[in-house]
């Protein structure tokens, strides 16, 4: 067998070979041919062509140049995006700092990428209780509900509603009614639905086109939820300032 810059002298396992091919397309650039890839990765051509066909079938790679060349497919963007920390400019951090100084709740900046919730900037003094649950269970958090409320079909993005506490909404119709309320009032709430004893509320950050692209969240003990609600006006003003920073 041939040995190239990425070759290690032994025939690779299919999954390893596939990942190395994606890496090679990324390195050699759009339009690289199957033959060039086989040589670069150091793989028997027949194996390489078969793996390339699998990768194009699952759309991680696409064919360009009248089928001769390869490029990284759109599907890879989701993976790459997940690996990158969202960029938050210092002007936006200033807005958050100012609000944190005035309010005795956790103030978090949430960013929506596709149909996922990402944490843009979390309050250093009152950190999130579980970033893990926030990302996985949008139906149980205020920021998640705000995202779901503005998706064309939230049921497709979230087919199963998992029970996390005794307050979690797991009936799709009840959730649907609440999402309609979120759209009407332009704020979302949650009280002990994600983690017992913790409440939060979220107001949208909008792009120039009016799309909801992120949220400004307040989080604190559920017992002080009514005090939190009184701060929504200030939060909405800060969210408006953040909206102005969006391209």
């Amino acid at each position, binding site marked *: 067998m041939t040995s190239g810059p990425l070759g290690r002298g032994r025939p690779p396992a299919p999954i390893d070979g596939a990942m190395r091919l994606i890496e090679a397309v990324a390195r*050699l*650039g*759009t*339009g*690289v*041919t*199957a*033959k*060039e890839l086989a040589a*670069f990765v150091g793989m028997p*051509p*027949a194996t390489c*062509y078969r793996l390339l*066909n699998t990768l*194009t*079938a*699952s*759309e991680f790679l*696409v*064919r*360009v*140049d*009248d*089928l*001769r060349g390869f*490029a*990284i*497919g*759109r599907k*890879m*963007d989701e993976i*790459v*995006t997940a*690996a*990158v920390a*969202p*960029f*938050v*400019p210092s002007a*936006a951090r200033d807005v958050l700092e100012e609000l944190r100084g005035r309010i005795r709740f956790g103030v978090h900046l949430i*960013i*929506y*990428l*596709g149909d996922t919730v*990402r944490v*843009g900037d979390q309050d250093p003094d009152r950190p999130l209780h579980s970033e893990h649950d926030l990302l996985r269970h949008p139906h149980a958090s205020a920021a998640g509900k705000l995202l779901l409320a503005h998706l064309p079909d939230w049921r497709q993005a979230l087919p199963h509603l998992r029970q996390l506490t005794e307050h979690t909404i797991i009936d799709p119709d009840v959730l649907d009614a609440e999402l309609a309320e979120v759209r009407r009032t332009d704020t979302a709430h949650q009280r002990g639905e994600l983690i017992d004893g913790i409440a939060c509320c979220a107001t949208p*950050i909008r*792009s120039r086109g009016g799309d909801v*692209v*992120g949220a400004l969240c307040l989080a604190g003990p559920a017992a002080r939820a009514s005090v939190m609600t009184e701060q929504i006006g200030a939060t909405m003003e800060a969210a408006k300032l953040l909206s102005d*920073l*969006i*391209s």
Partner: protein
Amino acid sequence: MRMHGVARPELPARSSVTGLDRRRLGPLPVLAQSVAAVAPSGAAAIIPAIVLGATGPGALLAFVCTTVVCMLVSWCIQQFACRMRAPGGLYSYSARALHPGGALVTGWSALLGYSVVAMAGLLAVGLYLADLAQRLGAPPSIGPPLAAGVVLVAGVAVGVILVAGIRLSARVTLLVESVSILLVLVVLIVLFVLVLPTADLSAVLAWKPDIRPLAVGIVIAISAFIGFESATTLSVEAAKPLESVPRAVRWTVPAAGVLYVFSSLVQSVAMPSPSISHEVTPVTDLVSLHEPMVMSIVLDLAIAASWFSCALASLNALVRVLFCMGREGVVPRGLGHTHPRYRTPSRALAVVLPPVVATPCILILAGAQQHALADLLTLSALGYLGTYVVVCVATPLFLRRIGEATRATWIVSVTAALLLTVIIALAIVQTFSEQPVLVSVFLAVLFGSSCLALVFRRRAPARLEAVGVYDETIASDVSRGAQRGIFR
């Protein structure tokens, strides 16, 4: 080694086959398209009997050999299907490797195959249901008008289903075809169990290699497999086309092969005399020999259903080939229009449906029903075989052009092309001696389309150059890199 910064042609913003309902079908409906176009239950009921009549005990071997040949062809088709999304199927594939004029002739051969098998499907629906009506006590005199009426109704139903969207037609195809295969399998198994005690299996399975009847048998048997490639015409509408389409093409052939081998085994042990194979509905007659009414009624219904979905699937493929030709401008451009709401090639359907329905009606009313079905199937087989030979030749050339040829590609495709050439030559010689008209029609289509290609070459070379449209990668299919958030 190529590095960044090389000037590259821009990717198109939209595909040249926009207008179809892109990426909607799951893997099962895609498989159903190929299976239905083969019409395995309808073919299992008719063709093994004809092969048996021609080869005697060699029928099993003939079906095994044919399965192998078709698997080689299917391998060649898969090489295209896993690399490009082309609703024109084999026509568009051949254009990737051959001169566009040659592709045009291939396209017309495919149009002949799809349209004539759709006619045969509708004709068979009429014949089987009229036969059933007579079995249930209708007077023989109303047979032909009844059959023609059934063809008309079935034709209109096919038209409505095909316009109303690919998802509906795919679902109907899947449902009807699964039910009919199941019914035919049940009937065959019951028949097998009934005749097994008195059967002489050793005579059926005896190894008597005799090349001449075997070759004749293969020529007939291959007409039972044609259509397995038709999932390729759904490659824009399939959700993951580069995976589901080659898979459908791969599995249809061996699955149909197993059914045919079993069917010919059952029929050869159950058949009392060779004369029965000249009947129109041999398995039904066999069943009525061994069993009372119920089973033969079930069987007739199942076979009619199978032919109905065959007509549906073949027209589905036919209109998509015409749609591509319309987009290229090698037929009137209007045929490339799609229905704005249902996103189906409705204009192409409106043009082909009337002749496809009228032909079997006229054949039935002219009283030519006995042999018309076999004749139509033979003619369509010639059309399909023409495209298969071309695609086998095109496979290694295509792979060499994109730099992905291997030794295996050359061996498989050259073997497939040689075997098919022999089969098509035998088919032409044999058909010519029995039905010279059929061969003349086939050759006339080839000649006519060659002339058309020549005219295009002199008068409108740009249109000929456009041959071979497919669903190419568009700008939004390619990675734009990581999304860094929402801020500037």
